[in-house]
């Protein structure tokens, strides 16, 4: 057997918080413990999904900033938009949509706007392999 991988460890701590700690708490402490468990869930999803966003950003840097993109293409695109040297055409908007769909799938797949985005841009959501979950 191999050692415990990061996602397994995170899942174990989440289960501990939700099943053993949370039932003993109430009020603000219970609320904060739910935030803690949810934060670990975000980290788990980030471990799986971060590389795809990094790759998407790198491709966007190559596409819209040619050779001038640095190590943070999303920031450089933001600065080009700020300088109005980059026109937000349909392709650029699709990049931003796919990027945001992927980020939402990590941060909060239950957000109502995420579900709306998946419905509005089904091809992008399918390409990103994401889908909105039912709200709590």
């Amino acid at each position, binding site marked *: 057997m191999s050692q415990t991988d990061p996602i397994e460890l995170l899942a174990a701590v989440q289960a501990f918080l939700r099943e053993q700690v949370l039932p003993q708490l*109430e*009020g*603000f*402490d*219970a*609320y*904060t413990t739910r*935030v*803690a468990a*949810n*934060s670990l869930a*975000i980290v788990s999803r980030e471990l799986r999904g971060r590389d795809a966003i990094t790759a998407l950003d790198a491709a966007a840097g190559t596409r819209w900033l040619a050779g001038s993109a640095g190590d943070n293409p*999303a*920031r450089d*695109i*933001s*600065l080009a*938009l*700020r300088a*109005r040297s980059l026109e*937000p055409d349909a392709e650029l*908007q699709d990049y*931003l*949509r796919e990027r*945001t*769909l992927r*980020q*939402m799938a*990590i*941060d*909060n797949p*239950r*957000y*109502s*706007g*995420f*579900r*709306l*985005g998946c419905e*509005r841009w089904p091809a992008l959501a399918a390409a990103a392999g994401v889908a909105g979950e039912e*709200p*709590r």
Partner: protein
Amino acid sequence: MNSETEGGVDATVSAATLAAALSGEGARGPDSITGLRRLSGGANMETWAFNLEHAGASKPLILRRSPLGSAVAAADSPLSQLPLTAEAALLPLAAAQGVSVPSVLRVLGLDDPLGPGYVMSHERGEALPGRILADDRYSIAREQLARQCGATLARIHQVRPALLPPEVPNQTLQERLALQQSLLDRYGNSSPVHQLALNWLTANAPEPTQHCLLHGDFRNGNLLVDEQGLVAVLDWELAHCGDPAEDLGYLCGNVWRFGRADKPVGGFGEYEDLLAGYEAVAGWAPDMATLRYWEVFCALGWGLVCLTMIDLYRSGADSSLERAAVGRRVSESEMDLLLLLEE
């Protein structure tokens, strides 16, 4: 949200200090104050609930205070709040226009041991959005709320600007857009979506119609509701002057619909009812395009609030888990902005 914190009574807020502050209101000593408990709130803001026992009656009250020496957000921060004494001055002005608000019993100045802050009536009603949007007992209220909110906003907007405390921020839209740009710059220009939205807001700024008092945080969560609808308007700390349509658009921001994206007004109502309620009092109402402009402004504003909270966490000014975690809600604002900008 709004849960009560267990125990932990602050050294300075006690039955004795409250009784001293309320001696003019009939308090005769520590025994006059019962049921003192702290309600959850921010690090620089304390909200306490208690009862004043006087002449055989028990009067439920709320104390809001900011402890001296607590961190105060810079004036250009999205988290900047009115001084509590100015907030206390706004409530009677709104009440005079027919807006239901708690009544201010006593203002505690800087020289008061408990100040700055104020004591107000503890109104009964529900403020938790989840309950207002889901419980059967509020089904009639949900049908009334959008129209009531429109009428109430129109009344707030009728407060005469000359009467306002001088601390109420009064900036043009152009100044506020410039401030948003400086915040995006300060936080590292990390979001192309935020920049895209700010470019759009700059290019599409509406001609100002009027410049009046705005509540500034008029949304589900800051409204006290009973079975018949709106009971009282709370949380005036973000009041400022501006375009009246801003308050209406803000109420419709998706982040304040609490999962009910299909109900544009606060997750409970329809645009037409909000605008009809406004027009019934004001004699006019903003058009939908202007309302949508302010929804975009609200969505970007929420993103900036999230970024400011991460910044507070990183600076060490607020090391709470809540602050760190809200940083992961930036993408909500980006999603809402992309949806709005395509319409």
